[in-house]
């Protein structure tokens, strides 16, 4: 029921928008618990972070190497997600073929799959000895993926790809295809339409796809450690560094965690107005 129809009613019912603002007391308690659930660990991190030593820790060889690797892995992964995700979203939105729903379900699955299972799956596919493709790659070309940066990229892409596809699908769905038709009648080739009409009009969703998949790739842990291992300089990204430091130097673990929080926060701010309203 809209406000406009409410306001034309009798005075007693016209007050309903005011009543709508009343929040049940039980909800206030539960909502506060919800906020605490998220805020307490964050607060704990802030309080436990060795602020006096943070510069020294983050400038250390381990942290800098992990940061550099994380940025490379996340950025490469986001780029791959976009390059493969855009055509895939296109096919899923505009194509009609049998099994489309199934394909879509399979592509989205990593989003809800335990990352460690993703890592086991990646081993089964790309592992050197028994991997479906991996053994063949090794036997024929001598290429080994496991324990390489490429494996870290593959693991990060596996888990972040669905986010990119979902965002790009939303962008394509929201696009008025008749604008593309109009562009064609104006002499634009398919490539020109894509470059000058489709992609610019999808700008916000493309940005969202890149940022979300980048952020997800940056935080990837389970699949990476299972499939790529934890080798400093090759596969040890920031989350893996945190995990290792937690057993040796807790101060360092908190400092690096703080860095990840900072990066995540920057992403949220970057997305402000797109998903946060």
């Amino acid at each position, binding site marked *: 029921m809209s406000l406009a129809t409410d306001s034309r009613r009798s005075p007693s019912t016209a007050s309903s928008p005011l009543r709508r603002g009343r929040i049940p007391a039980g909800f206030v308690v539960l909502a506060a618990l919800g906020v605490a659930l998220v805020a307490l660990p964050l607060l704990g991190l802030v309080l436990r972070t060795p602020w006096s030593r943070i510069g020294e820790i983050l400038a250390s060889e381990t942290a800098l190497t992990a940061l550099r690797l994380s940025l490379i892995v996340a950025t490469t992964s986001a780029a791959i997600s976009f390059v493969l995700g855009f055509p895939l979203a296109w096919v899923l939105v505009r194509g009609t073929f049998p099994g489309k729903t199934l394909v879509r379900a399979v592509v989205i699955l990593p989003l809800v799959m335990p990352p460690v299972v993703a890592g086991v799956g990646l081993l089964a596919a790309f592992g050197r000895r028994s991997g479906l493709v991996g053994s063949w790659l090794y036997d024929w070309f001598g290429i080994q993926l496991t324990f390489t940066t490429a494996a870290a990229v593959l693991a990060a892409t596996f888990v972040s790809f669905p986010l990119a596809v979902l965002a790009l699908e939303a962008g394509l769905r929201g696009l*008025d295809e*008749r*604008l593309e*038709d*109009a*562009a*064609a*009648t*104006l*002499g*634009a*080739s398919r490539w*020109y339409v894509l470059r*000058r*009409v489709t992609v*610019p*009009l999808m*700008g916000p969703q493309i940005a969202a796809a890149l940022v979300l998949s980048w952020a997800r790739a940056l935080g990837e842990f389970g699949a990476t450690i299972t499939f790529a291992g934890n080798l400093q300089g090759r596969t040890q990204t920031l989350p893996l560094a945190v995990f290792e430091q937690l057993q040796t130097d807790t101060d360092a673990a908190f400092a690096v965690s703080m860095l990840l929080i900072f990066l995540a926060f920057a992403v949220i701010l970057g997305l402000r107005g797109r998903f946060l309203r």
Partner: protein
Amino acid sequence: MTLAVDVTSRRGAFEVRAAFEAEAGRTVALLGPNGSGKSTLVSTIAGLVPPVEGAITLDEAVLDDPANDVHVQPERRPIGVVFQDLLLFPHLSAMDNAAFPLRARGVTKPEARQRASELLARLGLANRADARPRELSGGEAQRVALARALIVEPALLLLDEPLSALDVAARMRVRELVRDELARFPGVRIIVTHDPVEASILAERLVLLEDGRVTQIGTPEEIRSAPRSRYAADLVGVNAVRGFLEPIGEGTGRLISSEGALVTPWPEWYVEGDVVGIVRPIDVTLGPDRPEGSARNVLFGRVTSVAIEGDRARVRLATAPPLVAEVTLGSVERLGLRSGVEVWASFKAVEVELLPP
């Protein structure tokens, strides 16, 4: 230059079959009610909906010929289209919208912008070149769309309902502008409209489209003097009954349609098939009682609407077949004519003019 269209196109279950020609220098209007297939036909000519049968040619160039697997893609057709809802690119300025077709053809940005701003200036938009589509008024947006369609000097200009999105004041102004631009455009010009006034002001030749079929082609005068369908008759304000004839006596026939029958003169030229009987509303006499006299056509029915135009009224009747009568305001008062009232309508057999289809 001549565009020859003779196609069947399908969109879902809807089928349009149309054949007509349009010559350079003479504006053709595709005129039809909503849902008659005008937009499908526009999309077919533009190349967006390939026809399933037939052919479209522009002089010697074959644009569509499905029997021989010929379908020229939209971007390769020398056609400028202004769509009904314009479809300006929301992320580009007015100038870049107008320059788009040049840029798509590889013209450099400075040159494309130069030519776009000259054309926008001619259309009275010199000071709006930097505005985005959402900042433009309806009339301004219409002119940008026109500029975008004209900038590459296509061989064919196709305007789909160019004035329908505008308010009354803007419509008058843009209509003049569209008329001027059509007049100076040397190629084939086609406008699509559901408004007969717009069609007769802007076009020299009308193609009437009803329910996916062309029902009549002619100049506005030809259609006015001899409408061939109910829609055409409605457009020009006369009654038209389509059916076949059977003789009922010396020089007299009965026109039998699916909605009722009329007594008519027997035309010497008639052999068989459908004819159209025209009854002018002014010839239909209304009365409260069954008329005595020489009128051979006497019908009884309910009034469905009364529309007053000046000192006369057009009265729609649910007779069989349905009729429109034109009477004086005095008669409206005397007979108490309003919706729901039942009256007798009559007219002579010779007042039914028969036209071969």
